[in-house]
């Protein structure tokens, strides 16, 4: 690998703007995420964290700027100096490198845990079903759910559902994992089991962008913390700086709520 490629960040966001009608939700976000890096995004509710995450895999299209993942511009293609919108199929293909974990888990309720996990590998990535099952069983074991492979989501607790959702995101062997407040819908006593799973992933060198209100997780597991407010990145840096010695008054006032 040439040094130029090695230095290219996995995710590159430049001047990302996004509006819903008259409401400007993202006001020029710049962010690089290196391969293997764990970045957590903190910020008050409504500051545009979910929207930014959803722009990265083109669940929302952006109005200005550009987003690149793994060297490919998401949603567009530059050809002979002209930028064309990609057709839906090509966008679907770009998303296959990106796993996502949602606040509300969003497991497929008509499928068992195992079926949830193998759906994309078999149906989208064309993996052999037997191999996918083997790997899915391994992943479910890794998140501590060997006993639950054949349970339906409604038979699982919130924490177990979210761990299945994490296994499902891992099953596609993603280059990038996006987490949108993965523990916010959980009862307090179930938060720990999901955070433990995520800490394991962080220590295994996966590239993760995690929107969360768990300051403890950000402090221990993140390489960098991004503080967002009102559609802009206010402060970026290692957790010991942003969390322990915040420079900006808005960061300080946000963090003071958690002490």
């Amino acid at each position, binding site marked *: 690998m040439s040094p130029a490629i090695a230095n290219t960040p996995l995710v590159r966001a430049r001047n990302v703007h996004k509006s819903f009608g008259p409401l400007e939700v993202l006001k020029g976000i710049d962010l690089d995420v290196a391969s293997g890096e764990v970045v957590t995004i903190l910020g008050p509710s409504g500051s545009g964290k979910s929207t930014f995450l959803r722009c990265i895999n083109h669940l929302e299209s952006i109005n200005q700027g550009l987003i690149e993942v793994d060297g490919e511009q998401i949603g567009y293609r530059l050809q002979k100096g002209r930028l064309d919108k990609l057709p839906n199929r090509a966008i679907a293909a770009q998303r296959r490198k990106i796993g996502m974990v949602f606040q509300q888990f969003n497991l497929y309720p008509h499928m068992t845990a195992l079926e949830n996990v193998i759906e994309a590998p078999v149906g989208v990535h064309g993996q052999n079903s037997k191999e996918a099952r083997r790997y899915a069983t391994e992943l479910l074991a890794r998140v501590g759910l*060997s006993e639950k492979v054949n*349970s*339906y989501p409604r038979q699982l607790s919130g924490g177990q559902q979210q761990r299945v959702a994490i296994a499902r995101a891992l099953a596609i062997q993603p280059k990038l994992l996006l987490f949108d407040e993965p523990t916010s819908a959980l009862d307090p006593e179930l938060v720990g089991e999901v955070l433990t799973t995520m800490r394991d992933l962080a220590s295994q060198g996966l590239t993760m962008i995690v929107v969360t209100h768990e300051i403890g997780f950000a402090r221990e597991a993140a390489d960098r913390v991004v503080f967002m407010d009102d559609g802009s990145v206010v402060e970026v840096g290692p957790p010991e700086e942003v969390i322990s010695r915040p420079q900006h008054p808005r960061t300080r006032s946000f963090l003071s709520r958690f002490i």
Partner: protein
Amino acid sequence: MNNAMKHGQTLLTEGEDALRDVQLAHKPLRFDRIGLWTLALAIGGGFAYTVGTNKNFGWPIVAQYFFDPAVIQGLTVTLGLTVVAMVLGVILGLLLAVARMSKDRLASSLSSLFIWFFRGTPLLVQLIFWYNLSTLFPKLSIGIPFGPTLASWNTNDLVTPVTAAIIGLALNEAAYMAEIIRGGLLSVDRGQSETAEAFGMTRARALRRIILPQAMRSIVPPTGNQLISMIKATSLVSVIAMADLLYSVQSIYNRTFEVIPMLLVAVVWYLLITSVLNVGQGAIERYYSRGDRGQQLAARKEPETALTGDAA
């Protein structure tokens, strides 16, 4: 104490508490319910007896004609029309529902227009129009609008009573099914299609694997309803000279003047078909609510769990 032994250590044994343990509770006998049941059964039995022994109903004639070749022939036509029209109606209805929900303005307006027209006009009139298509368009042709014709047919060769009946019933059914299916698709949480999308599924795959199976729970009951209406709606095709079940019993009583017994033959057949469909519908509904059932299903699958667990 006897009860204490029967239930082992789980039973409370201290004084009056032993008697208050709710697992020993009896259901009270409800004399009012028993009375109502007796009354209902008496009225029902009495009614069945009067109808059964009333000579005017002509039950022996009903029995005699029940398996008459003409009746069975008519029954086959009714069932055949129902199945073909329903299958076509469901497929077209699904396409219409998806088109109506799409962001594409052209697709959604065309779909709305179709649904508006075919739900808004009587089926009988639609059937007569299809049957008489040749008086409106003597020739049907494929070609470039205002340009050369590529192929052309006599309308009467294409639109026989059978095709008129199938087209009429299927298009009408499609309009109703489109709305039923659309309602079902809308009932599925938006997060589901978003998740499918985030995992790189195409729209078609997301619809087939994720959205439709969940929508089925609210699609199946009204579809059962539609199917039952459809079986009865097929009797309208007798106006365009299709020999369905109703038409065949009518042609028999036009000869024998046994109007009531022959209509009873049709009624009993319609009820039999409907009963079979109800059973089928129940089975389908249970299948699509499988994610809902609690421990029962989990328990049944336990051995498999153990196996896959070992394999890992």
